[in-house]
């Protein structure tokens, strides 16, 4: 991987040039929150940004997305598959979200490749920015192996104050950078990551079981009372699903135009914590209890998908912990409780 040192002034000018040629989406201030939105100027960017409410996955897998349209004519319906793709730079993505996007790339490409995601992904250039301190007290990224960006980006920026280090992992990143900055052979960014890891280690809540033991821990504690205890407090609101960068379940809905001459089919985010997620038309609900739903969500993140893809599907962004109204959903907290009161 090549590294470049870029003076801040030069980097900002580069972003201005990018904006002219591409849609650039970056964390900006919106009311009291930070949100990934298209920017018109580099001045809008919130540097060292607090976590956005909605993860940047929304630019690959929107909350509501048209799958197809149909028109009715004398011969019956005409169906048109849809896919809107435009080149886009996603700027300022934290390591937890880079890891989440890496995992999303896997699940959408698996077995039946989902072009709706993959085409948007292909048209996207990912520019990460390192977190030099925890973005929120809820962050558990170091614990969940989400803080290490690996090579899961096109460009990764580390803020040194007057300069930035840009690590470039792909030809796409190299092309976007267009030769700005000076190549450096020093591993300064890695050194900074080591230091900031020590800071995160002091500040983040501890994960009591070993990270690599999480799948086994859950596997052996299926009937653990923590799910009953927390499930009792759960509102079943699905907020934890909606803000999660690795939740990807969806509902499919048809919308008819008022003319009844055409309509569209959309997919919208759905959540396994919602009451009717597994409910069929006959009324049978295959995951009726909130206890079961909380367990399923936790098992997806820390066991089923971890085991399948070799990494926890909680990347530690802390969004669900912040969003949860009753403070029951933290995967770290649940894992700690199971670890401390093992039932097997």
């Amino acid at each position, binding site marked *: 991987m090549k590294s470049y040192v870029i003076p801040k002034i030069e980097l900002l000018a580069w972003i201005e040039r990018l904006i002219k040629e591409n849609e650039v989406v970056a964390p900006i201030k919106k009311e009291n929150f930070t949100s990934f939105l298209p920017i018109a100027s580099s001045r809008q960017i919130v540097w060292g940004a607090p976590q956005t409410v909605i993860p940047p996955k929304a630019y690959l897998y929107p909350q509501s997305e048209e*799958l*197809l349209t*149909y028109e*009715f004519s004398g011969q*019956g*319906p005409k*169906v048109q*598959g*849809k*896919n809107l793709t435009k080149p886009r730079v996603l700027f300022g993505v934290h390591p937890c979200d880079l890891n989440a996007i890496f995992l999303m790339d896997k*699940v*959408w490409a*698996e*077995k*039946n*490749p*989902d*072009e*709706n995601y993959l085409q948007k992904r292909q048209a996207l250039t990912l520019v990460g920015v390192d977190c030099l301190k925890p973005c929120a007290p809820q962050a558990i990224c170091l614990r969940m192996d989400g803080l290490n960006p690996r090579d899961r980006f096109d460009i990764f920026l580390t803020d040194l104050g007057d300069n930035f280090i840009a690590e470039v992992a792909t030809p796409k990143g190299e092309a976007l950078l267009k030769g700005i900055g000076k190549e450096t052979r020093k591993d300064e960014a890695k050194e900074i990551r080591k230091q900031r890891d020590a800071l995160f280690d002091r500040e983040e809540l501890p994960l009591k079981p070993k990270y690599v033991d999480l799948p086994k821990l859950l596997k052996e504690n*299926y009937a653990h009372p923590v799910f009953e205890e927390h499930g009792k407090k759960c509102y079943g609101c699905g907020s934890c699903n909606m803000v999660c960068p690795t939740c*990807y*379940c*969806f*509902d*499919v*809905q*048809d919308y*008819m135009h008022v003319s*009844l001459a055409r*309509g569209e*089919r959309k*997919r919208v985010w*759905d959540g*396994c914590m919602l009451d009717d*997620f*597994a*409910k*069929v*038309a*006959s009324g*049978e609900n*295959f*995951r009726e209890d909130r206890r*079961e739903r909380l367990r*399923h969500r936790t*098992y997806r993140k820390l*066991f*089923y998908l971890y*085991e*399948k893809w070799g990494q926890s599907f909680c990347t530690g962004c802390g969004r669900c912990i912040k969003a949860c109204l009753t403070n029951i959903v933290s995967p770290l907290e649940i894992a700690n409780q199971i670890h401390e009161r093992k039932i097997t």
Partner: protein
Amino acid sequence: MNTLYTPELATIKKVIPQTAWETFYELELDARPTLGHKPGQFVMVSVFGVGEAPISITSLPLPDQPTFELCVRKVGNVTGALANLKPGDKVGIRGPFGNGFDLSRFKGRDVLFIAGGIGLIPLRSLILTTLNRPADYGKVFILYGCKTPKELLYKGELKTWECKDNVECQVTVDLGDEDWQGNVGVITTLLPKITFDPRRTQAAIVGPPVMYRFVIKELLARRMPEGNIWMSLERKMKCGVGKCGHCQMNNIYVCQEGPVFNYSEVKALPEAV
């Protein structure tokens, strides 16, 4: 462009009401010569403007067969809208999806079908497969239970199946009516009425969730090996291609690895039955 989610059009050729709730459809794909399904698979059926639902294929798979058959209970939005369609109307079809029954495990064996309610619909595809090539299979037992006689499906066909040399049919209802002369009782009461060798018989079971536990218990008590017990499981499905998440039971996507499961797989999955 066409994606995983773009249905192909199919034309309804025949509509045959079965009961007050279920309707039988014969369909033909507009742009492909044959659906090419296996017994136990399903399709996603679209009524445009209403939505899409997973529906079991009920017909005998034959090479180059231009039509395929569905039988649908009207119970939700999509199935309710299907009930209003007539011959000549168009629906959308995606699939066939799912694994289907592994015929190699049934060939050369006696086959015991246990159907509860509309569980007979997906099983019919496999029943017809065994009846179509009697030389490939041993004896065939068909046990079928419904709540009341009004809900019995494929009544005419049941009679023709019964007439075959290698076939034994037993039908029961939970609650009879004035005209009902047959068995009354839950489906497990039919098991003592047939003589089968559990070790050389493969059982295929489809019914409501509550039925599986009782039926499996009875079969295991008769020393049927776990590996001989096959079942097809219903789940909510929105995509059919292993993405939308609704059909998960534990770590399994039913639309991909099912809907047909062997009992030996299912018993390790607390969310299965």
